[in-house]
């Protein structure tokens, strides 16, 4: 069960791991954080010129953090563009993933949001700071071990 892109990467000796296909039949690959920046450049040169979305999630309590990239190859006259989904896993202790801001500029706010919610620090991101929470916030709200502070909210009124 190997997709087209995975075979192409194997042919060029690029390390990755195939995670199968999602429900739409889009190939999913896992790439190590250390290799991610160079492979991102290679994928851009290969033709994936459009970053459809970037998101991040916490895999399991105490487990890894994942950063997910959906790439699309936009060309003229194509109604079924090539797509691929890349997952990069980072350890919870020191989550560092190279930023792909300098490859796909549109990842700017998405990576900032991933940093804000999950604390993944993207290396070489130009302005990596909190985007949704106040800048003095402590903790990463979407991690599974996050404990929300007992703030008094207006919703307490009933």
């Amino acid at each position, binding site marked *: 069960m190997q997709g087209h892109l995975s075979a192409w990467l194997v042919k060029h000796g690029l390390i990755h791991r195939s995670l199968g296909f999602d429900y739409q039949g889009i190939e999913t690959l896992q790439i190590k954080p250390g290799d991610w920046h160079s492979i991102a450049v290679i994928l851009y040169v290969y033709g994936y010129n459009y970053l459809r979305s970037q998101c991040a999630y916490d895999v399991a309590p105490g487990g890894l953090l994942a950063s997910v990239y959906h790439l699309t190859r936009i060309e003229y006259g194509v109604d079924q563009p090539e797509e691929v989904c890349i997952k990069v896993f980072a350890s919870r202790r020191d989550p560092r993933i190279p930023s792909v801001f300098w490859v796909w500029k549109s990842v700017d706010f998405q990576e900032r949001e991933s940093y804000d919610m999950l604390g993944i620090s993207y290396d070489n991101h130009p302005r990596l700071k909190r985007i949704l929470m106040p800048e*003095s916030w402590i903790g990463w709200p979407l991690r599974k071990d996050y404990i929300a502070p007992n703030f008094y909210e207006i919703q307490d009124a009933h």
Partner: protein
Amino acid sequence: MAAALSSMASMVGWKATNRTETFTSRRRYNNGFSVRGQQQVQESTSLQQEEVKEDKPVKKGATEPRPVEPQTNVESKNMGREYGGQWLSSTTRHVRIFAAYIDPETCAFDQTQMDKLTLILDPTDEFVWTTETCTMVYSYFQELVDHYEGAPLTEYTLRLIGSDIEHYIRKLLYEGKIQYNMNARVLNFSMGKPRIGFNYNEYQLEDVNQ
């Protein structure tokens, strides 16, 4: 904001007309803290003797509020755009905490004195306050400020303190120490509708340590 919170606190003023209390805490300085602290305690007791004398029946073990002396000729400072045009605060309905000195009479907002925390208690006048219950809230505020001493002076810390005071006010309400002010301008019972035969202790979860 590399400043740190501190432990000296003090009541600055008391406006009996609209139940707005201002309350200030002062950062501990490394040099000459003890001397300054003693001076302040003496001054504050001399200034507010009638209040402090009345509040002796506060439960034992509560932290005594340590007010700073009221200042004269306070002017609003550092509120312009060149200073950012904003202030460090935690504002909820009953608790407004500002990292500044606020004059209780003129409401001048002196943001150069960020070593003080000012608490404005229940400005919308939702509850009926007595001197005793006010002092309970003040001493709890003092206790929290002592507890958070050394923490970074950020909105997050102020919000932690303000939320704890709000929860404390709700606890006072549930225990029947304070009541809703039926003449309040907005009467929406923001901490729960009044109930008959309600016992607060039945709704408390047992503490793990007990």
